[in-house]
């Protein structure tokens, strides 16, 4: 009798542990609205399949400075098994040696090449882009109708675009043509259209290049002449605010603005157009912003981590993200979706942003091993000119010397 109870107990224990043989995979990413999206993605799209394979996914959002926290986590060995790898800091993270190369683990074939390139170093792919974004012109249809000018469209050049903005500006002293932030992450697209490159072949940067100066003067000139306004000068947090509040007719943003407009300006009649072409080269310019999924090289659950990464970048997951109006999928095949042809402003905008990645001079939002430090001197120069404290030539000169110093310091190490 005693023995059989023991046996029974042993048996039931084995049964229990089989059912409990779940590997928990920790996934770390941004805070903000991402935890809610991830939870829905897990609950509604990919969670059940993973569960059946014995994998539980646990999303750990990082609410503060993601890059700083993640650097600490990686060095201390407390990073998640799978984590976000933002494109602009990818070289730095890869240099730590704690990001797992994925060539032999994941099929990289279905993903857009330009995106994979951002996460490739020495022929090894270190991150699978989860989605991406580019810039487009978002405009308020009513304001353009009222001003009796055409909406911004695919044929616009810098000059014709500016003319349309000036016409809208005429309407009312409280309404600006565009809301422009003092940010290289916007201005850079205009410089790229002019054929300018962020780095020369020898790794130096030339802000005095005519192509850059021209774009710089165009962008800041819209503000100094009063056609456009900085968001902070009309009490707005970012250009999306200006557009939603009808303080400006145009904002240059990516697909992230769609969800915001849906919540904050549900009655706004808006449309999207591709970035204008350069008057000089006839090309468009654009940034590709992306974040990838990467695997922690020190993770004890490598196999499970790969499975989770595959699920997170699967077609079903990407379709879900797309339909939430958050970002554009990174799989080439999803470009063929019927969704992009729907007659709905959001779908139309998403199509333009998807096409933005392959039209003209498009570069990844990445600045080598100095990361976003690259933008700081340029942003300061944009601000100085937009607020009327310096002229373009002198502002660019001091930005150039600061940037040279930053590059020299990074190169010396």
């Amino acid at each position, binding site marked *: 009798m005693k023995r059989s109870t023991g046996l029974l107990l042993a048996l039931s224990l084995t049964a229990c542990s089989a059912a409990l043989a779940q590997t928990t995979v920790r996934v770390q990413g941004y805070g903000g609205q991402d935890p809610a999206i991830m939870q829905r993605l897990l609950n509604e799209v990919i969670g059940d399949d993973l569960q059946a394979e014995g994998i539980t996914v646990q999303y750990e959002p990082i609410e503060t400075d993601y890059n700083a926290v993640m650097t600490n986590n990686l060095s201390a060995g407390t990073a998640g098994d799978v984590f976000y790898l933002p494109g602009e800091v990818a070289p730095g993270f890869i240099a730590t040696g704690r990001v797992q190369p994925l060539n032999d683990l994941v099929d990289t074939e279905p993903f857009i090449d330009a995106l994979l390139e951002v996460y490739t170093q020495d022929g090894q792919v270190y991150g699978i882009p989860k989605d991406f974004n580019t810039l487009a012109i978002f405009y308020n249809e009513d304001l353009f109708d009222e001003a009796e000018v055409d909406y911004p469209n695919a044929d616009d050049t810098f000059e014709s675009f500016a003319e349309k903005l000036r016409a809208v500006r005429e309407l009312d002293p409280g309404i600006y043509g565009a809301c422009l932030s003092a940010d290289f992450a916007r201005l850079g697209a205009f410089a790229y259209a002019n054929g300018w490159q962020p780095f020369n072949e020898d790794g130096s940067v030339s802000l005095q290049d005519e192509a850059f100066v021209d774009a710089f003067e165009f962008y800041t000139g819209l503000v100094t002449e009063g056609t456009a306004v900085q968001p902070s*000068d*009309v009490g707005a947090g970012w250009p999306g605010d200006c557009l939603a509040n009808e303080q400006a007719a145009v904002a240059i943003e990516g697909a992230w603005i769609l969800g915001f407009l849906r919540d904050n300006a549900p009655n706004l009649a808006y449309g999207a157009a591709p970035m204008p072409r350069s008057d000089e080269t006839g090309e468009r310019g654009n940034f590709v912003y992306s974040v990838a999924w990467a695997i922690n090289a020190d993770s004890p659950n490598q196999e499970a981590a790969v499975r989770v990464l595959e699920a997170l970048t699967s077609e079903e997951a990407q379709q879900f993200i797309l339909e939430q109006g958050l970002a554009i999928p990174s799989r080439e095949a999803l470009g063929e979706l019927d969704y992009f042809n729907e007659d709905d402003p959001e779908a139309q905008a998403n199509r333009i942003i998807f096409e933005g990645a392959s039209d003209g001079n498009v570069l990844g939002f990445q600045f080598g091993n*100095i990361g976003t430090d690259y933008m700081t001197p340029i942003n300061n120069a944009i601000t100085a000119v937009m607020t009327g404290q310096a002229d373009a030539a002198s502002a660019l000169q001091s930005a150039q010397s600061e940037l040279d110093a930053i590059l020299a310091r990074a190169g010396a190490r």
Partner: protein
Amino acid sequence: MRAKQQEVVAAYLFLLPFLVTLGLFFLYATVRAVYFSFTNYDLFNAPRWIGLQNYVNLFREENFLFALRNSLLFSAIVTTVQTFGALVMAAVLNQKIRGLNFFRAAFYMPSVTSSVVITLIFLWMYQRQGLFNYLATQVVNYAPQLGAFALVLVGLQALQVGLERARGLPARWNDPALFVISLLVAVAAAWLLTFLGVLVPRGGVVDFVWLQTRQEVPGVFPTFLRAPVPLIAIMIQNIFTTIPTFMLMFLAALQDVPKSHYEAASLDGATPVQQFFHITIPAVQPVTFLVVTLSLIGTLQMFDQVAIFGNAVPTRSVITLAYFVYQRMFPGAQLPEVGFASAAAMFLAALTLLIVLIQRRFIRSEAS
């Protein structure tokens, strides 16, 4: 004897939790940081000894020199203003006035508010279309009215006091009864002149850039003595939030000053201002020492407000030593420069110690 030993053991047992935390998070961390400051440690690769190289590099770094200047200016100006301000405010709140408790609570409010919240509120007030520029615009636009108001006020008060004295009556310059009359007449005069169209509000908007600027003032000073405008903005905010804390300390000290001293002084004909300088200030000297020390340490290590202003301002205009350390510890996309950051942190610690030692020579810590 055994009882005595037991007592000692018990004392150490009670101290133990504190000693462990102190040892782990202070002593151990400090020793590690000192060691790292002589290496090229980057969190990921094993540290390599490079001697004094980090310390030499500090002075070749432009941002470090800006940080050093900003920290010293910030510390000197803020400590001076807030110590004096706190003392004056404490002296005022030490009077017997109506609603004293309300004022004490109200003035203490800024200190209990989170510095993040305060900074966000100030960020909003410093905007180009923010509260500060709005008030300045109003002052500029209504300068004629304000001028007329002030002229009438002072002139009428002088006239009334003069008349009273001519009649042989003792009247002080700030006699309240006469002042009320002057005030009412001045308001009426300013309003009437505006109503009649004699004084016209001037147009114009004050468009002073508080934050997004590299302007440094005053322009006539040599570079290392100029304060960047955004740094001044942070100074104003910092003074606003820390005066109340120090005021509380002075207030406690003032409660101990015997009232008889003031009574004796006023019998001898000392004015309130003379009493303040000759009785109040000497009497609270030990507390002044404490306040100045705390303020120097706090201001030299100021970090949070710069961090929250963050990208809204050009870095070099507001960078402080503590922020410089943080920036090097968590740079954009590069590997952290732990060795370099540690060297900067050691420099900051040594500088703080030095400045506190210097000020000890000037303010005695005990009342004579």
